[in-house]
C-alpha cells in the first residue's frame, strides 16, 4: 500500500539575526492511511516545525530542502492556491495552544463553522458535523457556540479544537500537543478520540512531549532530538527498550524508572555539531561518534530504525 505521507531528506533552517537556526535535519518518515505516528521530543527539538512544514506555513526567513509527499503529490513545490486546497481538503490541524489559536473577538461557533466551511461542508452539514465532533469530546454545540474563547478554561479550549479533527474527512490529522492542560481522565479520552479518528481511515501525526500519553496511543514512535529524527520504532518496542541512547536516557529520567536525568544541557540549534548531535551527553559514546554524523540504521526489521553507530553493520558484528 502506498504511503499517505512520505517525508524524505527534509531539512529546514531559519536565517535569524543570531545566526542560522537548524530546525530539522535530514528527517525521513512515512505514514500510511489508518496509521498513527507519535513524534516525541523536548521543546525545541523541531517537532512543531515539522508540522509547519507539512502545512507549508513557515516564515519568510526559512529555507527548506528535501521532499514532503502527500498522496504522491510533492507539497513543497505546489503553488499557493494548490496548497490551500490541500490544506482545506486533505489536512487538519489541532493547534498547539488553543487559547491563542482561537480568535478572541469572534464567537466559538463562528470560528468552528468557518473551519467546517473551509473543509467543504455546507452550513447545515457543518453544524451537524460540529455538533457530533463536540459531542465526541464531551461538549455541547448549543452551549459552546455562543461563547468567546476567553470564557472557556484551558482544558475546554483544547477540547474545542480537538473536536475539529472530527469535522469533514481529512486524510491526515496533525495534532500538536493535544493534551496540554488536560487532566488524566481527559487525556485518556483524547487517546480514545484519536484512535476513533484513526479507525475512520485517517492518518494521524501526533506531536507531544508527554511520554505517558505517547505510550497510551500505541502507534509508531518517532523520537526527535536537536532537529534530528533519532529513532523510529513501534510503541511497544520503544517503551520496552529504546534503541537510541537518548531514548534510553529519556525513559530512565521518568520517576518510575529511577528519575535519573540525562547529563548535560540541550544543544544550541545555532551551533549544532557536524558529528552525532547527542554525542556530548551520550553515556555509551565512542571516539567514532565525534567524527561522523550517523544515518538511520535499521535495528530490527523495517519498522525500527535508529540514528546511532551502535547499529551500524560494523559495530553489530562485534
Amino acid at each position, binding site marked *: 500500500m502506498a504511503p499517505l505521507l512520505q517525508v524524505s531528506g527534509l531539512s529546514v533552517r531559519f*536565517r*535569524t*539575526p543570531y545566526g542560522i537556526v537548524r530546525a530539522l535535519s535530514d528527517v525521513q518518515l512515512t505514514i500510511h492511511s489508518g496509521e498513527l505516528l507519535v513524534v516525541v521530543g523536548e521543546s525545541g527539538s523541531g517537532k512543531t516545525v515539522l508540522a509547519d512544514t507539512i502545512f507549508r506555513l513557515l*516564515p*519568510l*526567513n526559512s529555507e527548506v530542502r528535501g521532499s514532503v509527499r502527500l498522496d504522491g503529490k510533492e507539497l513543497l513545490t505546489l503553488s*499557493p492556491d494548490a496548497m490551500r486546497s490541500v490544506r482545506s481538503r486533505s489536512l487538519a490541524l489541532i493547534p498547539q495552544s488553543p487559547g491563542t489559536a482561537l480568535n478572541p473577538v469572534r464567537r466559538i461557533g463562528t470560528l468552528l463553522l468557518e473551519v467546517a466551511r473551509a473543509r467543504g461542508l455546507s452550513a447545515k452539514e457543518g453544524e451537524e458535523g460540529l455538533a457530533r465532533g463536540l459531542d465526541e469530546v464531551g461538549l455541547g454545540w448549543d452551549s459552546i457556540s455562543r461563547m468567546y474563547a476567553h470564557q472557556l478554561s484551558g482544558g475546554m479550549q483544547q477540547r474545542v479544537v480537538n473536536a475539529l479533527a472530527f469535522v469533514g474527512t481529512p486524510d491526515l490529522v496533525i495534532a500538536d500537543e493535544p493534551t496540554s492542560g488536560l487532566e488524566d481522565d481527559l487525556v485518556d479520552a483524547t487517546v480514545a478520540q484519536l484512535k476513533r479518528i484513526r479507525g475512520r481511515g485517517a492518518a494521524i501525526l501526533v506531536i507531544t512531549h508527554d511520554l505517558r500519553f505517547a505510550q497510551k496511543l500505541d502507534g509508531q514512535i518517532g523520537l526527535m532530538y536537536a532537529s534530528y529524527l533519532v529513532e523510529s520504532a513501534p510503541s511497544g518496542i520503544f517503551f520496552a527498550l529504546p534503541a537510541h541512547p537518548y531514548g534510553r536516557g529519556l525513559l530512565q529520567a521518568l520517576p518510575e524508572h529511577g528519575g535519573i536525568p540525562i547529563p548535560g544541557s540541550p544543544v544550541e540549534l545555532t551551533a549544532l555539531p557536524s558529528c552525532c548531535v547527542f554525542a556530548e551527553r551520550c553515556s555509551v559514546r565512542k571516539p567514532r561518534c565525534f567524527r561522523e554524523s550517523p544515518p538511520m540504521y535499521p535495528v530490527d526489521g523495517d519498522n525500527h530504525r535508529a540514528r546511532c553507530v551502535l547499529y551500524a553493520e560494523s559495530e553489530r558484528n562485534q
Partner: protein
Amino acid sequence: MKFIINEYPSVAEQTRRGILHRVPLRVAVAAVGILILGFLALGAYFIRPVDARSVDLQRVLNAPSFGHPFGTDEVGRDLGIRLLHGLRVSFAISILAAIVAILIGGLAGLVAGTLGHWVDSLFMRIVDFVSSQNHLLLGILLVVLFRPIMGGAAAIVLSVGMTHWTTMARIVRGELLSLRERPFISAAINGGANRLRLGWRHYLPHLLPSMGLGLVLLVPHAIFHESALSFLGLGLPPHQASLGNILADGRRSLLAGAWWTSFFPGGLIFIVVLGIGTVGEYLRDLLSPRWRSELEL
C-alpha cells in the same frame, strides 16, 4: 502579486533592525543637515539683519534669481537673509522654550515622584488632563493672557512650556518609580534620608540623561508651536521675525503668485522639524526604547 501576510519579519527587515551600531543613512543625513543649519543660524549673528535700509521697492516680489537665490519679499528685501535671521530666532526661542518645558516637567515629576501618595495621584490627574488638551488652543490662550506684560518672546516660551511639560513629567516620574526600587536608594531611605534631599542628591544625576534626550525630542514640537503661533499673528513682533512670521508675510503675497515667499519659510520649518525629529528618534530608540509611546512625534 505577493498576497502574503507572513508572521516573521523578512530578512531585509531583520538586517535593518538588528544592527543598530551602524547609523542609518537618513539619520546621518539629518544630523549633518541640522548641524549645517545650526551653523548658519549662529552665523546669522554676524550678518547684518534686514532692516529699513534693505527695503527696495524696485525689487518687490522678485522670483528666485541669481542675485536673490530665494527671491525677494513684498517690500523688496532679500528673502534669503530674512530666512537666515528667521532661522536664528526660531532656533533660539524654541530651544529656550523646550528647556523651560523640560525644567517645569522635570521638576513637577521629581516632586510628585519623591512625595508620592496623594500628591502623586493628583499630579497624574493634572498631567492627564493637561496633556489631552488642544495644545494650540491652550497656547493661544496663554499667549493672549501673558503677552501684554511679558512681551512676545517670553509669552511664547511660557506658552510652549505650559503645554508641553507633561511628557517630561511623566517620564521623570516613571524613572523615579523604578529608581526607588533600586538597592542604593532603599539603603538611603532606610538610613533615614529626608525625602527632598533624596530627590536632589540621588535622583537628579540619574535623571539628567533622560532630560537631555527629552530636550532633543521636544525641540521640534516647540518649533512647530512657536511657528504656528507666530503664523497666526500671536507670536513674535515683526522686528524679531521668526520663520513663522516670515511665512505669515509670505501668505499675503501668495495670491499674487509669489510661491517662494511661502515655500521657502515653510520648507525650512519642515526640514528643521524633520531633521531634529529623525535624530532625536534614533537616539531615543538607541538609549531608551521604552519611551516610544510617550514621545511619538
